[in-house]
């Protein structure tokens, strides 16, 4: 019934393509890396190394795909909000809510499939290019490399399925559309109800508490043995899962706090209100970034704290380059998830401006200058980015510190608890990335917002 619109789904296809390309390429690279390493090792068994590298790769792929799915669920939910009238009209003439939702989900399946195909091709091309460069630089030997290993089906199928599920989750509000909304000028819909999420929020809170308790335990265990870090990994996964599920409990208050920091000008005040207008949407919009910033911060802080603890020791100099290398590679790999989250943020901000055409026209009619409108949209972008960055930094420093502390509690020279070491480059990189994202995210929406004629506020659909 709803014809598939490429234009409408372009951002979701982009996100699915990015996730698939990342997964496919990462697995191809790790597989070929294992081949290269073992090629000049007669005794080496490439199979074991390949599997080990692939397991690590899949962890990063799962993170990227999860972030991609969250972004897509959000995009779909925003698209549905914009389609309310059409859906209401179809409901009016007799379509059931369930059939409408299924129609949306089938669009999701289509988006996932198209994205997976584009991503597979793009990812393979990237790998091919990397291999060529690697051979040209004599970095890897010129042997036969492989691209079509069955393992790459994991990210491909994963992207199709998660995009499909995400479109289903994001289309929940189809069920809330009443046929009445097709008649007359419906009032601005009330805020999204969070009622259905009470159970989930409670579960998230319990997970967070249990996880935090295990994290505390890991620090205690770490005083006796480095095994503490394994306990810590377990606790970290549980508590972070709780935080992500409970994003609606954390992000809106943070957004309010950041909103207050933006000042009292009318543009900033309206922006602050807009950012928390749909708590569910803004939580999803920011949580992907939170995940990225948290993980990058965690690795950086853990490594820096670890290095500081080891610095009095003789062999510290040998460990440093290896550790820095690992942190750099992990940062890049996680940075990719953050990129996907950023795409989602940019897109959602654009869509929300598009859907607020009347309201923005009203503000223009009442005397908002286009400059103020631009400030308002930029403030919204800044607020979303800053909230995500702040939460991510706080969490990442916490997790990174627990990780380092639980591992090195028994190291010679470490007495009791160490303070976390926060590398300056990290703060600089996060601030620059956040500012860039804000600037990029506001370009298209501000252009759109300032092109709105005040007359649209008076027109009747």
């Amino acid at each position, binding site marked *: 019934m709803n014809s598939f619109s490429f234009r409408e789904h372009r951002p979701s296809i982009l996100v699915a393509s990015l996730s698939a390309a990342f997964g496919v390429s990462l697995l191809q690279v790790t597989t070929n890396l294992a081949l290269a390493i073992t090629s000049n090792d007669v005794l080496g068994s490439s199979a074991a190394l390949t599997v080990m590298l692939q397991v690590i790769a899949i962890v990063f792929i799962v993170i990227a795909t999860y972030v991609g799915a969250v972004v897509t669920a959000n995009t779909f939910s925003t698209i549905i909000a914009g389609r309310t009238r059409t859906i209401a009209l179809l409901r009016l003439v007799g379509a059931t809510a369930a059939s409408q939702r299924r129609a949306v989900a089938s669009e999701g399946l289509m988006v996932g499939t198209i994205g997976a195909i584009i991503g597979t091709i793009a990812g393979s091309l990237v790998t091919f290019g990397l291999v060529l460069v690697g051979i040209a630089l004599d970095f890897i030997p010129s042997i036969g490399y492989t691209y079509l290993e069955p393992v790459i089906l994991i990210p491909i199928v994963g992207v199709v399925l998660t995009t499909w599920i995400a479109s289903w989750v994001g289309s929940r509000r189809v069920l809330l559309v009443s046929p009445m909304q097709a008649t007359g*000028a419906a*009032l*601005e819909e009330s805020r999204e109800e969070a009622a259905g999420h009470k159970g989930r929020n409670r579960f998230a809170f319990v997970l967070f508490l249990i996880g935090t308790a295990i994290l505390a335990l890991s620090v205690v265990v770490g005083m006796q043995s480095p095994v503490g870090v394994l306990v810590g990994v377990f606790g970290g996964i549980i508590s972070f899962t709780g935080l992500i599920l409970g994003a609606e409990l954390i992000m809106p208050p943070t957004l309010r706090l950041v909103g207050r920091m933006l000042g009292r000008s*009318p543009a900033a005040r309206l922006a602050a209100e807009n950012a928390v*207008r749909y708590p569910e949407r803004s939580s999803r919009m920011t949580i992907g970034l939170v995940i990225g910033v948290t993980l990058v911060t965690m690795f950086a802080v853990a490594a820096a704290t670890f290095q500081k603890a080891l610095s009095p020791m003789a062999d510290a100099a040998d460990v440093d380059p290896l550790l820095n290398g690992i942190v750099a590679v992990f940062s890049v790999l996680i940075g990719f998830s953050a990129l996907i989250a950023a795409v989602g943020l940019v897109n959602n901000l654009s869509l929300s401006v598009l859907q607020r055409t009347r309201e923005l026209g009203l503000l223009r009619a009442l*005397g*908002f200058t286009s400059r103020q409108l631009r400030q308002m949209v930029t403030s919204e972008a800044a607020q979303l980015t800053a909230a995500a960055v702040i939460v991510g930094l706080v969490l990442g420093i916490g997790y990174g510190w627990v990780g380092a502390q639980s591992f090195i509690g028994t190291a010679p020279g470490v007495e009791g608890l160490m303070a976390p070491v926060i590398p300056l480059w990290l703060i600089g990189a996060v601030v620059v990335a956040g500012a860039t994202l804000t600037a990029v995210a506001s370009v298209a929406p501000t252009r759109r917002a300032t092109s709105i004629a005040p007359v649209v506020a*008076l027109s009747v659909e």
Partner: protein
Amino acid sequence: MTEITPDSLGLVARVAQLTKSYGAGSTAVTALDDVSIGIRKGEFTAIMGPSGSGKSTLMHIMAGLDTATSGRVWIGNTEITGLQDTELTMIRRRRVGFVFQSFNLVPTLDIEGNILLPFELDGRKPTSGERGWIDELVGSLGLADRLRHRPHELSGGQQQRVAIARALGSRPELVFADEPTGNLDSRTGREVLSLLAASSATYGQSIAMVTHDPIAASYADRILFLADGKVVEDRTRSTAAEISEYMLGMESRS
């Protein structure tokens, strides 16, 4: 003629030889065809006409929301023809008020925030005199216990009263109302019209209301009829029956 200011004629807004056309060549549509009118200070003026008569376009241009193809426009003594966007914005912010048919409140602000929005946009707080006036408006419009509510928690009629409070709050020179009763049931619509008429009669508020509803127009002091982009009639207060009769006559004449 050009030496006489609109003010000295007792006008709060005026348009002269106004023409507005869309498109070009054979597909050109003329929405306004050489219209010259003045809106008198302190009066409640209704601009009437069937759909497509150009009444909304006329109001948009008078309010500085749209630009004319040719002709001149004044708000008070200020000619707004050819003003830049920012200057027009300042005119809208400080000198005119609006009541729209629908979607007229900012959903993220509470009722008080919406009423004070024109001051907020201007980056200032209402003076104590203005504060007193707003309190009086809020009281007489029955909104006193609604100030902390959000727009979606109010009925259509209540929302429209909030819009009226917002439009009158800054005591603008002229309030433009675009089909203010279009989305209301007839009883609530009559209440809103009485409020507009009373604010004009009691406080001397100048109001220009666009409508196609003869009952709405019957609340006005003066009624301008538009048809096919031209002013075809200008009469004083009339009953809904008289207005309907004239409208029907307009149909048969065309």
